[in-house]
């Protein structure tokens, strides 16, 4: 049947694969794998599944570099989300995903459906979602469009997350001109479940039923994945079908109904419908299980009449789930969904053989091998070439700039620059407390979420590095992993796994691919040394507008485990008189620093390198210090260097500090230089000797540089004073600028 169709249409579909984003060579591969020409429905199925977004054709070979195993890993990349054992019979489940292009054309709905999508990936595995995080990049908020995007994206993330009742506990927001036309919206979700509840996205068991639940299918988002696999252009604004409207209410009901079905063991396999819709869900579940499917498209509940089979198969309508169910469990499943007034429809069944056969009005409209559609796309080894800017920018020496005249002014400047300023304007729009498990919400190095079942807690953080990866992709990749894991360590949690979202330009351009490849190599190296596995992630290529690419931006979501929820640590100075210590190596640089960007308007120079062995020692030491309750506060040193971190610890604790730096210090470098593997601690005097001893044993530098007290940050050096700022002036600079900018 399918064959006859394809012959009939052979003439008409003349190179139509090109319009669907397939290359001639790829089309030839399809014909080869299928043993005949595909008919138009089949070609549509192939084209969405072989898009970059679904097939990872330009990234697959690089992603193999990531270490994906550890004694804790239960499920690495390849399923909807990674699963890591956290003891007591429980597992943490997490993943991050991009929704960049939809957010560029409809910021509210683009971001909202991004959150809805990543949420489904978590409960699809059987896990109760417990936290959202997000990583955002925009153009400078100095114009209406920039503010419009920021406002819409933040409202959309809150709109969805708040409504489904999962707290949004952390994230990051950065601004660079390169993100002006192509903002980045990466959403992460973390869940927890009893290990025995794990279900996979597999269509196993011949004779089992294939069931579709949730929203009706409409014309929205048809070919959304193709849209995500192209550069943005004028045309994108008109690409209406690629944008969907989220329905968080339905989303919330689907979570509850799905988890109840999983708990009652009524389902054999669960798969969410996301990119490439039904086509992806059907072919992936069948291909993972090595089975076939027979599906009756007439059964799919439609929102409007007249959808063509290919439209039903590729629609990305939100809030839909696919279940594989043993026939005797169908009525149990129906009871649950009826209670929540959610539609549930049997579409077909699992068969022997590996063909996905689609019926429509009594005829076979598509008959394709699941593995070929889901996994047969070519893996490219694109050419990479070092871009011209690279050497030129690295050769810039920031120390050639004149010394700063007034470091106090500069610190205020930095505190009120959009990258560093308090993001409370953003997170106060997120319900970060719902579920009453948030022990530390947004604003710290990582968020801490308690686990009611075990008395343990998870620390979660998300960090990306655009500017530094631009200046040195290999280093930037390492730094992203190091910073995210260090952030959870600062709360006292041991990093147990990461998920990553790789936001890059067009991989078919050698410079962009070189950035990608080097960044992945750096991340992989950092994961190896730090012994944290990558258990899942997402790649977003083609982040370009009119040939201008974004900074290569790897974003890392880290999850850490705290054995005792009662013992976690925050960044704020707590006790008058506590000693303040600087932990970690001395090496810093102004290359790629915020100082250079904010004060001198330059993005250049060599960032400080990282000694991953030292990073590991620092992180392990931080965990030990917090676990033993020896420190009052811990805060990671990152953007803006020592001065900014000290100011943040002062503001977070509502206390001043008096700092005395060693004599030989170059003030600009000491105050504002940036480097990895460092943290500011404060601790009671009585613990001082023990902490120094532990640092020595660990082989980590630790210097006492001052004490907590007063109502100002006072930084001196050998009798001279670098700067002195009152808490209230710092707070004003830090806290008010964002709301002012956005109003």
């Amino acid at each position, binding site marked *: 049947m399918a064959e006859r169709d394809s012959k009939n249409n052979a003439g008409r579909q003349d190179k139509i694969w090109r319009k669907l984003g397939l290359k001639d060579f790829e089309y030839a591969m399809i014909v080869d794998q299928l043993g005949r020409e595909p008919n138009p429905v089949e070609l549509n199925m192939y084209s969405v599944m072989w898009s970059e977004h679904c097939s990872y054709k330009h990234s697959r070979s690089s992603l193999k570099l990531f270490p994906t195993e550890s004694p804790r890993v239960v499920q690495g990349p390849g399923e909807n989300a990674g699963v890591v054992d956290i003891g007591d019979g429980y597992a943490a489940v997490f993943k991050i995903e991009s929704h960049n292009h939809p957010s560029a054309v409809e910021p509210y709905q683009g971001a909202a459906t991004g959150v809805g999508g990543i949420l489904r990936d978590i409960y699809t595995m059987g896990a109760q979602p417990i936290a959202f995080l997000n990583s955002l990049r925009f153009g400078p908020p100095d114009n209406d469009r920039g503010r419009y995007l920021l406002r819409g994206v933040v*409202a959309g993330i*809150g*709109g969805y997350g*708040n*409504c*489904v*009742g999962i707290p949004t506990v952390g994230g990051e927001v950065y601004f660079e001109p390169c993100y002006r036309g192509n903002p980045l919206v990466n959403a992460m979700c973390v869940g927890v479940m009893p290990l025995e509840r794990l279900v996979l996205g597999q269509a196993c068991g011949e004779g089992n039923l294939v069931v579709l639940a949730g929203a009706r299918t409409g014309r929205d988002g048809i070919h959304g994945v193709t849209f995500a696999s192209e550069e943005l252009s004028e045309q994108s604004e008109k690409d209406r079908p690629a944008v969907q409207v989220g*329905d*968080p*209410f*339905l989303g*919330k*009901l689907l979570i509850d109904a799905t988890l109840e079905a999983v708990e009652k063991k009524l389902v054999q396999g669960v798969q969410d419908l996301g990119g490439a819709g039904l086509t992806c869900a059907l072919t992936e579940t069948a291909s993972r299980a090595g089975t076939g499917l027979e599906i009756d498209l007439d059964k799919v509940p439609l929102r409007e009449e007249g959808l063509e089979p290919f439209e039903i198969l590729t629609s990305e309508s939100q809030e839909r789930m696919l279940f594989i169910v043993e026939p005797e469990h169908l009525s149990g499943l129906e009871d649950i969904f009826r*209670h*929540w*007034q959610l539609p549930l429809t049997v579409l077909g069944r699992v068969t022997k053989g590996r063909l996905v056969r689609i019926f429509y009005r009594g005829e076979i409209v598509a008959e394709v091998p699941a593995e070929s559609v889901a996994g047969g796309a070519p893996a490219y080894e694109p050419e990479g070439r070092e871009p011209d800017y690279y050497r030129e920018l690295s050769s810039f020496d920031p120390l050639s700039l004149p010394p700063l005249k007034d470091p106090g002014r500069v610190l205020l400047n930095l505190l009120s620059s959009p990258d560093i300023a308090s993001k409370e304007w953003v*997170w*106060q*729009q*997120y*319900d*970060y*407390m*719902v*579920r*009453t498990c*948030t*022990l530390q919400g947004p604003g710290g190095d990582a968020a801490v979420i*308690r686990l*009611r079942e075990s008395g343990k807690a998870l620390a979660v953080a998300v960090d990306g590095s655009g500017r530094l990866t631009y200046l040195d992709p290999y280093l930037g990749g390492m730094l992203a992993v190091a910073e995210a894991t260090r952030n959870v360590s600062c709360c006292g949690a041991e990093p147990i796994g990461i998920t990553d979202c790789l936001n890059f330009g067009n991989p078919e351009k050698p410079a962009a691919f070189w950035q990608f490849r080097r960044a992945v190599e750096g991340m992989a190296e950092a994961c190896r040394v730090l012994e944290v596995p990558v258990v899942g992630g997402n790649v977003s290529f083609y982040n370009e507008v009119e040939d201008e690419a974004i900074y290569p931006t790897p974003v890392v979501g880290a999850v850490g485990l705290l054995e005792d*929820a*009662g013992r976690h640590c925050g960044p704020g100075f707590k006790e008058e008189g506590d000693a303040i210590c600087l932990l970690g190596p001395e090496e810093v640089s102004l290359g790629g620093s915020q100082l250079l960007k904010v004060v001198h308007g330059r993005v250049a120079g060599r960032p400080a390198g990282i000694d991953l062995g030292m990073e590991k020692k620092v992180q392990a030491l931080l965990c030990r210090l917090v676990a033993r309750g020896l420190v009052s506060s811990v805060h990671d040193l990152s953007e803006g260097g020592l001065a900014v971190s000290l100011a943040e610890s002062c503001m977070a604790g509502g206390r001043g500090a008096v700092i005395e730096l060693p004599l030989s210090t170059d003030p600009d470098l000491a105050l504002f230089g940036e480097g990895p593997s460092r943290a500011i601690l404060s601790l009671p005097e009585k613990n001082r000797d023990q902490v120094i001893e532990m640092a020595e044993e660990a082989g980590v530098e630790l210097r006492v540089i001052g004490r907590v007290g007063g109502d100002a940050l006072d930084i001196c050096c050998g009798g001279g004073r670098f700067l002195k700022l009152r808490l209230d002036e710092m707070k004003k600079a830090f806290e008010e600028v964002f709301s002012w900018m956005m109003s």
Partner: protein
Amino acid sequence: MKFGVIVFPGSNCDLDAYHLVRDVLKRDVEYIGYDRRKLGNFDVVILPGGFTYGDYLRSGALAARTPVIEALAGFANSGGLVLGICNGFQVLTEAGLLPGALCRNDSLQFRCRQGYVRVETNTLAFTGKAKNGDVLKMPVAHGDGSYYAPPELLRDLDDNGQVVFRYVDRDGRISEAANPNGSTANIAGIANRRGNVVGLMPHPERAGERALGSVDGLVLFRSLIGHLQDREVAGNG
């Protein structure tokens, strides 16, 4: 003594209220499904926060028209104690069980933050263990929390002691900065005339454990428990 927590489609703080009553206060608590037409035997019924029916159309509007609300109205009319938190408050106003309405925050944004409310009347079952003027630290998290009442109603509420909580600063002073949503006269919570139905926008159930930053919300629940115990004693004697 038994607490009930109504679960509407889209409720999401049901878990938090349930957890607080069961695990922190160690009292009996049961969920009540939205499709129930009879409530059963409860002493206090809590309408939890969340986004019932997505808060589509208006916050709380669709939930206020479900069967369980008719049963709840019966329960309230016969003197049963009803506490609406956040979305629960919105449902109660939409259902006409509390006067006034909750409008969009004047910032037009969802607001989640720690804050303070002042106890304005301690003669209710809900506040018996507090003193008038007590300042309680409790978070808010809502997008439609701006309480509106026409002037005559406002006067009535004041005259009858129906204003239960107002937003204040840490020192108990009413100020614009302390008002998270533009609410009329900084009103954060009100009671019905009879005093057995109370709704408030802040989340007492999120202020019940030290690890979460405040235990001030407990006074509401302790007051209710105290009230019920007194009633039992009186009933037995």
